[in-house]
């Protein structure tokens, strides 16, 4: 409550470095054992688990993609029946969007944001742990259901009435809806943490114009999550209510409306794609400046473009509904707003190219992925502009043209940067380098394989091939290109496989990395690789946007934090002036227990509304256990 109180406690400053490290370790190191592993609240451990889990889901989703491609390689494919095929593409889409793309971007934020802004842990570390467990539970729900042959089969956006009480058989659509609840809960939790971490825990001196661009991107993304996700929560909950207790939100016979579901879904669904894309823009900006050996060109325009895309993204949802027969004036508005996104997106691309122009590019693997990103994403963005045109979309909507568009932007625009980011930050996360040689191979295989796989899909769509068909008749002219696409995807799969191989190989015996192997300018490189449990011995003091380039030898630090409790620095929102020495919650099993209780309640509620009532009690108990002070030093003041 007041400054003098702290004087009694030991401070890092007064101790010799080894002793300081020992004490910091004692309070920050995660607890041991299985129980300890379930109690961890260290953002780096959780972030790493999150990332690893998301990549497992990528591989699993990729396996489903392989099934799709085998099935479609020839007319009247016999590998999968319609029922299984519908589950396969639904789970592929839902898995890729909800269990891979969104979580992996959030996870990169969980790992990197606290390091990049120079703090010791993320805000609300226990919420972070809770979020991870909820995410795992949601993923398990989807995949277990799928393996038991009651996976959702209604497409990743689960349109009613197909997913409604009359046509969605069994519990399949409920699994889809509830899986969304899980992942949204997890994403919302992380979004709140990131917003507060960025607002309140930046290193002293990190004013708004010194925030790394990746952190800006995560901040904007988190706001998108906060404003967009409630819409899908309402859509999926209303769907479950329609299915379980007989409400009529989407039932036209009783005053409900089928398109209401689509409006709600896409009010979330469109921002969702930028939730995936904006962090990737942040990654590209960061890597680009490191490998072009100069600050990124146009910091301010880039920040403005991130924010503009964020704001605009809420005005585009109906461009997914151009063929539903909305009023024509409204449709034209959505065409205009969709196309307007090309302007901030263009600003980004142009600034990236200008950065390369002005810099001296160093060809390490991350830059290869950045180049692949620019080439590929621009194609995807331009086909986005094409489908944004109402009349044009009336021909290509729901065809493979759209499938091509969104894989170009998702894989080219988000997965390529992400793979580059893994090459870039892997040394920080593990202390070991990945292979330059394999990296070049991965980039080449994935780039070539991707374009050969997905470019022909544009043509297929124009030739009339609808999406989501499990088979097509031999008389239809699609056989040749489909075979080509399926064969080309082998190259793509090989590239991904090699990537996984490189990750595993490097984790075991990559070359030691050192603190700052790329000579990068941002704060995460100011600490050891991997960073200690407390991230920074002394909290960095920031005087410019590229602190490590100003002075690669010594780091100005703030002293005076205690070493007998988890303590970090809270600073003001705008100017990052120190305001308080806030404590940071320690390890606890309660978030795990709360997640288990929540899981039981959410899964139970698929079967009976009473599960909500009875399931809430254990949740309440777990939450009280979570927040009840235990008299730890962290509870002081």
């Amino acid at each position, binding site marked *: 409550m007041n400054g003098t109180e702290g004087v009694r406690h030991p401070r890092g400053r007064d101790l010799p470095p080894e002793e300081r490290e020992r004490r910091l370790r004692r309070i920050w190191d995660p607890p041991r054992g299985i129980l300890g592993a379930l109690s961890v609240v260290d953002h780096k451990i959780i972030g790493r688990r999150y990332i690893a889990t998301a990549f497992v889901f990528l591989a699993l989703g990729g396996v489903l993609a392989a099934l799709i491609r085998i099935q479609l390689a020839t007319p009247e494919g016999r590998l999968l029946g*319609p*029922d299984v095929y*519908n589950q396969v593409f639904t789970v592929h889409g839902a898995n890729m969007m909800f269990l891979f793309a969104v979580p992996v971007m959030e996870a990169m934020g969980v790992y990197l944001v606290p390091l990049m802004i120079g703090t010791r842990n993320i805000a609300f570390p226990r919420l972070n742990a809770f979020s991870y467990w909820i995410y795992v539970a949601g993923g398990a729900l989807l995949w277990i259901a799928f393996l038991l042959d009651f996976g959702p089969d*209604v497409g990743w956006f689960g*349109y009613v*009435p*197909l997913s409604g009480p009359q*046509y969605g058989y069994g519990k399949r659509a409920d699994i889809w809806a509830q899986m969304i609840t899980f992942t949204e809960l997890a994403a919302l939790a992380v979004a709140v943490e990131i917003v507060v971490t960025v607002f309140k825990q930046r290193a002293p001196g990190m004013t708004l114009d010194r925030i790394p661009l990746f952190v800006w991107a995560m901040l904007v993304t988190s706001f998108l999550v906060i404003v967009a996700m409630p819409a899908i929560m309402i859509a999926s909950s209303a769907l479950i209510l329609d299915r379980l207790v007989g409400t009529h939100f989407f039932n*036209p016979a009783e005053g409900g409306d*089928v*398109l209401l579901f689509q409006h709600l879904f896409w009010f979330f669904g469109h921002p969702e794609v930028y939730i995936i894309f904006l962090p990737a823009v942040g990654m590209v900006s960061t890597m680009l400046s490191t490998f072009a050996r100069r600050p990124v*060109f*146009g910091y301010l325009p880039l920040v403005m473009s991130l924010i503009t895309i964020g704001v605009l993204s809420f005005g585009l949802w109906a461009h997914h509904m151009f*063929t*539903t*027969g909305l009023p024509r004036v409204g*449709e*034209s508005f959505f*065409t205009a707003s969709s*196309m307007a996104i*090309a*302007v901030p997106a*263009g*600003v980004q691309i*142009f600034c990236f*190219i*200008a950065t*390369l*122009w*002005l*810099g*001296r*590019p160093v060809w390490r693997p991350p830059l290869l992925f950045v*180049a692949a990103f*620019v*080439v590929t994403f*621009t194609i995807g963005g*331009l086909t986005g*502009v*094409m489908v944004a*045109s*109402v*009349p*044009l979309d*009336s*021909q290509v*909507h*729901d065809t493979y043209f759209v499938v091509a568009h969104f894989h170009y932007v998702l894989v080219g625009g988000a997965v390529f940067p992400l793979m580059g980011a893994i090459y870039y930050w892997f040394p920080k996360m593990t202390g070991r380098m990945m292979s330059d040689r394999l990296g070049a191979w991965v980039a080449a295989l994935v780039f070539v394989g991707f374009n050969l796989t997905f470019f022909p899909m544009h*043509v297929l769509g*124009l*030739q*009339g091939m*609808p999406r*989501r*068909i499990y*088979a*097509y008749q031999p*008389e239809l*002219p699609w056989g*040749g290109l489909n075979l080509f696409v399926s064969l080309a995807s082998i190259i793509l799969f090989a590239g991904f496989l090699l990537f996984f191989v490189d990750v595993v190989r490097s984790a075991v015996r990559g070359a030691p990395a050192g603190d700052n192997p790329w000579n990068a300018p941002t704060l995460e490189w100011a600490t050891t690789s991997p960073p200690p449990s407390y991230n920074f011995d002394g909290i960095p003091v920031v005087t410019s946007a590229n602190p490590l380039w100003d002075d690669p030898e010594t780091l100005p630090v703030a002293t005076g934090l205690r070493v007998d409790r988890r303590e970090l620095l809270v600073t003001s929102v705008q100017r990052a002036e120190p305001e308080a020495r806030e404590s940071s919650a320690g390890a606890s099993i309660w978030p795990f227990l709360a997640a288990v209780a929540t899981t039981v309640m959410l899964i139970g509620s698929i079967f009976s509304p009473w599960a909500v009532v009875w399931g809430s009690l254990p949740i309440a108990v777990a939450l009280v256990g979570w927040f009840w002070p235990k008299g730890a030093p962290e509870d002081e003041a």
Partner: protein
Amino acid sequence: MSARRLVSLVLAAASCAACSPIQSALDPQSPQAESLHELFWLFVVVCSVVWLAVMASLTLALLRNRSTASEATAAGSRTPALAVGAAVVATVLIVAGLTIASFLATRSLATDGGGLVIKLRGYQWWWEATYPAEGVVTANEIHLPVGRPVRMELSAADVIHSFWVPQLQGKLDLIPGRDNAVTITVTKEGVYRGQCAEFCGLQHAHMGLIVVAEPPAAFDAWARAQAAVAAAPTEPEAQAGAALFQAKACSSCHAIRGTAASAKVGPDLTHVASRRSIAADVLPATRGAFAAWIVDPQTIKPGANMPAIALEPAELRALSAYMTALK
């Protein structure tokens, strides 16, 4: 212009060597589809130019002679700032242009209702077409008079479907509880294929639709024939089939006008043999195909809302003879 034609020809030719009714947006056969096709190529050209420009500047940036780089940095970032600014201005102009082009195209596509009305209703997984003025009820194959605007009134019986015949018009959804309508004018005789474009469940892949555009006289003849009740079969085998049809479960789902069967669960079969194909363009309308379909629809179209019905071989023969007689 000619290069463009060539590309689309090659694309269309590569895609369709033999099959008669093709289904491709690259081969427009109506004024509406034609103008969509024009718009499409406009976008392709503009976007290709933009992409090439971006790639050119990327390549230049990467391959630039670095010895001058230091000077450029020293001179400040004025030149790139100007270039970026110019590119942004160009982007604004281009997307504004494309927006206006789309808007104008939408406007030009809008046509008012014509004389002929067809009510098209989507079912899992077949189409019912009703011509109220002509008194025609049919399924999975619609006929249109060339040159006359036709107002298609779209509705759905169960889930969302989407009406799409790429050579004729962009798609429009059939939505339960909502009424959509689109007017098309077909100017060329021909047989066109369409397919349901909105995912609608198990057999979404097999929900084809045939559109036959014919001269008005031929259309009128067709409509008259379709409006008539079914002729009583003359052959003994077909007669046996007719009796079986009433006795077995068939009549609880299908209607054959002129007989007691009047159920509306499945397609109206009054003139089923006059169609080019059955089961939403899955099988040809031949006697063998009828037999195959009736004996085991679930293998041909797994999940279809017609059950396999236990039949003796003789009964099957009789039923398929009857179906084949329903011209």
